[in-house]
């Protein structure tokens, strides 16, 4: 079994163990509509986790996704309450995501600010703008049903949320595995100097990655608005940390160049299942981060051990 398969097996093994344990612990865990329920409520985390996967693949980080999500959600709510047509709302949301992503990219690539600090600033600024826009409380009122259909409707009697998750991951997989942009993302993450040497425009790739992350965060903000029908400025607290958790559980390495969107999907399923299981078993939800935390440590320790087995080096690693 080649080394690469082993490292990708771990998240899958984690998933299977969880399913088996779940079926014992709660009778109606392993049912079709419970899983459709899990997938339906994982749409927002899925979009943000995919965006975060791209950023982690180039070896950097984006802390501003939670706040961008909230800002887009609040703007979309304002427009939806004013009964604007859905296409216009979608365009505005995409624009917000794009602009935030490009600002992030500009701060990091042109001003040479470290990704952690650059996106932390964006997080604080966007969160403040969100609350200043709504004046603190949520924007309430009645939203017409067709707007809610974005997340509530069914296509071929499968809830639309599941379609979003599946389509998003298929597109993301195609982009990372099959397009030149996707391969260059891995190249930048795997060896930036080498990539630059062979004509990969590293800075352009980074800008595009942050734009993708911003757009996906804004889209998930739109979905939240459709789901709850109001503009809640407190949306998206800690979503960036959850997204990083999902990616790391899925085997994406934070040094860049390793892991993939398929791992992130498994990570998403693992994390969502834990939350769902805890709700079903009526366990205090505060315990959930402990379980995910331990899973991360186990997968991370095992994955790094596996990578160590490469050839015999002369000088000892420190």
């Amino acid at each position, binding site marked *: 079994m080649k080394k690469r398969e082993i490292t990708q097996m771990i998240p899958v093994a984690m998933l299977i163990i969880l399913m088996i344990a779940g079926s014992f612990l709660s009778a109606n865990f392993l049912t079709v509509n419970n899983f459709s*329920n899990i997938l339906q409520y994982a749409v927002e985390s899925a979009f943000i986790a995919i965006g975060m996967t791209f950023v982690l693949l180039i070896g950097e980080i984006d802390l501003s996704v939670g706040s961008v999500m909230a800002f887009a959600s609040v703007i979309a709510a304002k427009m939806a309450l004013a009964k604007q047509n859905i296409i216009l709302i979608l365009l505005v949301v995409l624009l917000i995501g794009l602009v935030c992503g490009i600002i992030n990219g500009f701060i990091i690539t042109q001003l040479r600010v470290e990704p952690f600090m650059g996106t932390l600033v964006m997080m604080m600024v966007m969160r403040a703008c969100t609350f200043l826009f709504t004046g*603190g*409380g*949520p924007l309430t009122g009645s939203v017409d049903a067709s707007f809610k259909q974005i997340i509530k409707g069914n296509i071929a009697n499968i809830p639309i949320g599941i379609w979003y998750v599946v389509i998003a991951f298929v597109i993301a997989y195609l982009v990372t595995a099959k397009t030149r942009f996707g391969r260059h993302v891995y190249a930048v993450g795997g060896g930036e100097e080498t990539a630059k040497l062979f004509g990969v425009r590293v800075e352009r790739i980074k800008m595009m990655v942050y734009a993708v992350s911003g757009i996906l965060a804004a889209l998930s903000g739109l979905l939240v608005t459709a*789901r*709850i029908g109001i503009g809640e400025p*407190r949306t998206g607290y800690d979503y960036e940390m959850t997204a990083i958790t999902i990616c790391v559980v899925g085997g994406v390495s934070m040094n860049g160049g390793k892991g993939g969107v398929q791992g992130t999907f498994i990570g998403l399923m693992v994390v969502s299942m834990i939350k769902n299981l805890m709700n079903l078993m*009526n366990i205090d939800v*505060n315990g959930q981060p402990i379980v995910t935390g331990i899973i991360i440590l186990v997968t991370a320790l095992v994955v790094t051990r596996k990578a160590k087995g490469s050839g015999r080096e002369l000088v000892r690693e420190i």
Partner: protein
Amino acid sequence: MKKKIAAVFIVVCMCIGMSACADSPEKNSDASSTEESSGDRETEAADGKYKIGFSQCVMNHPFRIAMVDSFKEVVGDYDDIESVVVEGNGDVQTEITNIESLIQQNCDAIVVSSLSGTSIYPAYKEVHDAGIPLIIAASGCATEEEDAYNFYDSFVSTDEVEMGIAAAQCANDLLEGKGNVVMIRGVVESTNSMNRYVGWNQEIPNYPGIKVIAEQSAEWLRLTANEVMANILQANDDIDLVYCENDEMALGALEAIRDADREDEMVIVSMDGQQDACEEIQNGGAFKVTITNNSDMKEAVSAAYAMAQGDSIDKRIILPYEIVTEDNVKDYIDKNY
């Protein structure tokens, strides 16, 4: 090399030095450890206007914002009150700093609404030491035996423990004594969630027929409540009543119940009396009862105004809470919105 230490010491000494030489205004005496007797402050303010400060703990919840708006509106009616509002962001350290800045601004009376329970008591002590009357509005307060009890002068709020008890009674009436209840709590560590929980657990034991089959937290958020409720619906087939600790979560739960189209199987009891919750009760869905928390600051301001003028106010002013049900929801909406 020694010069490098100077860079910091200049700044730190300047702070301490300035504070020592600055002529500390006679009103707030040095916060030395000697107990400052609170009663005998002069009553009238310098220019005949009274300054009342209001420290709100967090500004991201409609109920909290409603309190600040009503405070400003009520103060507007009095012509000789000048209001100072400071806003926290949920972090108790910021709240303490805000209250201290109210003390610096020589307020004649301070109204505080806090979520942080015991961690805020040092700020109450400082207000007390500075001899400024302190009114606690709509938040947890010290019980008799705690020493913080004598720091504040008046507690003007709906008694949330009472609201918890009322919620239990409503649940019992709706279920006629028997049924399964799902409880969705707010941020478990915030005091008003804690008080409502205490109230509910005091009352429920005397209705043996009612069983709480699920209890989860949804952090006051509609989106989280939506997901948590969807999961709970998966796990439990016969649910008769859903009790939420605020309207936001109740509306989120309602959304999930409608998605699972089980609205006719259960009823919803919640608190806060928000506008969209009342409208939900009006068009008669599963949403049956909401117990209104009183965000009206009239009593609090009048208590502060009186204290500023030196006359005393009794220690506990309990604002009535209203139970809004289908029949009285119409006039409640006309009155408030």
